[in-house]
């Protein structure tokens, strides 16, 4: 599909806003925005896996944990620079994702949800158990990031631009992937697996690769979650993190890339606002919001906005990133379906 001008304009506006934001917002917000980048990358992984591939993962926090810990261990114990650690994290997560993707092929629908849920709950206990590598309960601290010599900015702003550049790259590469043959195969497999297979689409290859790419993104996000915190511990990567990612994907809109960006913003800032009511308020708000969105706004915030826009402007000019998916993505998986 040919990118249209309106879509490019939207992407351009988003890029411009992201580039200019640090100049206008206070510096503590810059720090929050770095996490938005990390969350958006991870949620993008979920959008590809769940929204486009039709596979449920409640355990993407586990892939983030792997990514974060690979960077941390390599930097802490082997003295690797962060960029090399990040690449290693992506490779490690990709491999783990391919293996888990192979397993996931045999777990249809709700069974996959169950297995990934358990993976997410068990992750901290793995991290606590292998103390000699992970530092156990206490975790390990990392060097704060400094801007390279010759660049006139502080570490925080440098990290902001690096994170968002990486996020931009992740979104761009993912967009290229899902727009082509690969994305078409995934959508065909999601919407009508039998027809897709009859036309020669190999479900095993495509679904496993999609799981792998989704895990690479989660690992990348894990790295950019660990580095600004300059600290990793088993409590960083609890089940709550996995759920946070799913919440971001659902509230943002699980069938579009824009949903990943909006979801990243929501999961970073909504708790900060809700916390002012009560320490437990974010959970309650999240839980109620999940239920209400599923009942009334199944395409999330982005879907809702699009619906409003189209109501006032009937000529449908398809936004580029949405063009890769139908607006209402039914992820139909019946409990009886088994490969």
């Amino acid at each position: 599909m040919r990118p249209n001008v309106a879509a490019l304009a939207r992407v351009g506006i988003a890029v411009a806003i992201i580039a200019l934001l640090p100049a206008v917002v206070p510096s503590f917000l810059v720090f929050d925005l770095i996490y938005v980048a990390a969350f958006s990358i991870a949620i993008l992984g979920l959008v590809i896996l769940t929204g486009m591939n039709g596979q449920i993962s409640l355990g993407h926090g586990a892939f983030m944990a792997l990514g974060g810990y690979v960077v941390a261990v390599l930097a802490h114990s082997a003295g690797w620079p962060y960029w090399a650690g990040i690449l290693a994290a992506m490779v490690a997560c990709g491999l783990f994702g391919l293996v888990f993707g192979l397993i996931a092929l045999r777990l249809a629908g709700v069974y996959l949800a169950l297995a990934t849920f358990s993976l997410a709950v068990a992750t901290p206990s793995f991290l606590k158990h292998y103390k000699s590598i992970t530092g156990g309960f206490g975790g390990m601290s990392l060097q704060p990031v400094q801007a390279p010599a010759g660049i006139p900015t502080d570490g925080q702003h440098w990290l902001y631009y690096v994170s968002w550049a990486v996020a931009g790259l992740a979104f761009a590469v993912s967009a290229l992937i899902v727009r082509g043959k690969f994305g078409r195969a995934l959508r065909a497999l999601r919407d009508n697996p039998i027809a897709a297979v009859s036309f020669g689409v190999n479900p095993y290859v495509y679904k496993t690769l999609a799981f792998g790419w989704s895990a690479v993104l989660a690992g990348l996000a894990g790295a950019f979650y660990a580095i600004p915190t300059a600290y990793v511990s088993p409590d960083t990567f609890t089940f709550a993190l996995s759920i946070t990612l799913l919440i971001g994907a659902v509230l943002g809109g699980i069938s579009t890339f824009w949903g990943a960006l909006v979801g990243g913003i929501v999961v970073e800032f909504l708790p900060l606002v809700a916390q002012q009511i009560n320490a437990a308020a974010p959970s309650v708000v999240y839980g109620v919001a999940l239920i209400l969105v599923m009942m009334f706004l199944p395409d999330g915030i982005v879907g809702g906005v699009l619906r409003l826009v189209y109501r006032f402007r009937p000529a449908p000019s398809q936004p580029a990133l949405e063009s890769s998916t139908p607006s209402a993505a039914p992820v139909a998986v019946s409990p009886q379906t088994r490969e």
Partner: protein
Amino acid sequence: MHDLAQQIVSGLATGSIFASVALALVLIYRAMGIINFAQGELAMFTTYIAWQLAQMGLPLWSAFALTVAIAFAGGVLLERIVIRPVERAPQLTIVIVTLGLFIAFNGLAGWFWGYIVKPFPSLFPTEPITIAGVGFSAQDVGVIVVSVITLGLISLFFQKTKLGLAMRAAALYPEQSRVLGIRVGWMLALGWGLASVVGAIAGIMIAPVVFLDPNMMQSVIVYAFAAAVLGGIESPIGAVIGGLVLGVVINLLGTYVEWIGNELRLAAALAIIIVVLMVRPEGLFGRATVQRV
């Protein structure tokens, strides 16, 4: 040998908790094809209610009985208000709605009662019970007895009462049941009520051991998943046997296999879930489903 016998009984005690929560999951899965991810959190929340009632001066067993009644009403209401609107929605939608319940109840418990771990009074005496020269903890024995009674009553209810029969019919043949005048929607709601009761009892039974905190059921629900998967997610008897076996195996592995210890018990449950789902997805007692292409 004494030690082994004690470990097995203690495994059976935790196993009967897993069995109860697994049974609650299976009850709902059989009726609607839904896995209720919030089952453990509902049990946690009702356990807090029992604690609150006991704090307000109610004798422990009365608090227990009142909590069971509240749990039943709560389960029925949840089904009517939250689950009913999405009943026919795609699987992913329902999974997310039950996760929403999970997070909301976890947060509500933290909101009302805080995140500080609280001790929960045991319903059973503290002196050990001596059988054949081996002292068993009365808590363990009590938990096993209460669970056996609960599971027995549930089974009798489904086998011997007209209402139980109607519920089974509504789950298996909703259309035909409707024609025969069974209120299928209400039968499903009753199922949620019963599942919630079984969960509440399990929560009150395990709370003296794991203590009361909003996250107390998070690993229990994973074990319950493992138990249900092991026994076959559609088989109530499978869930119970799966739970008991899992309780004993996990306890023995954690005690006698050094490299597993305390922390990798959850990982063992995860491994069971994945291996069973890959090798024999229908579980030990389920029937294989055949899909028409």
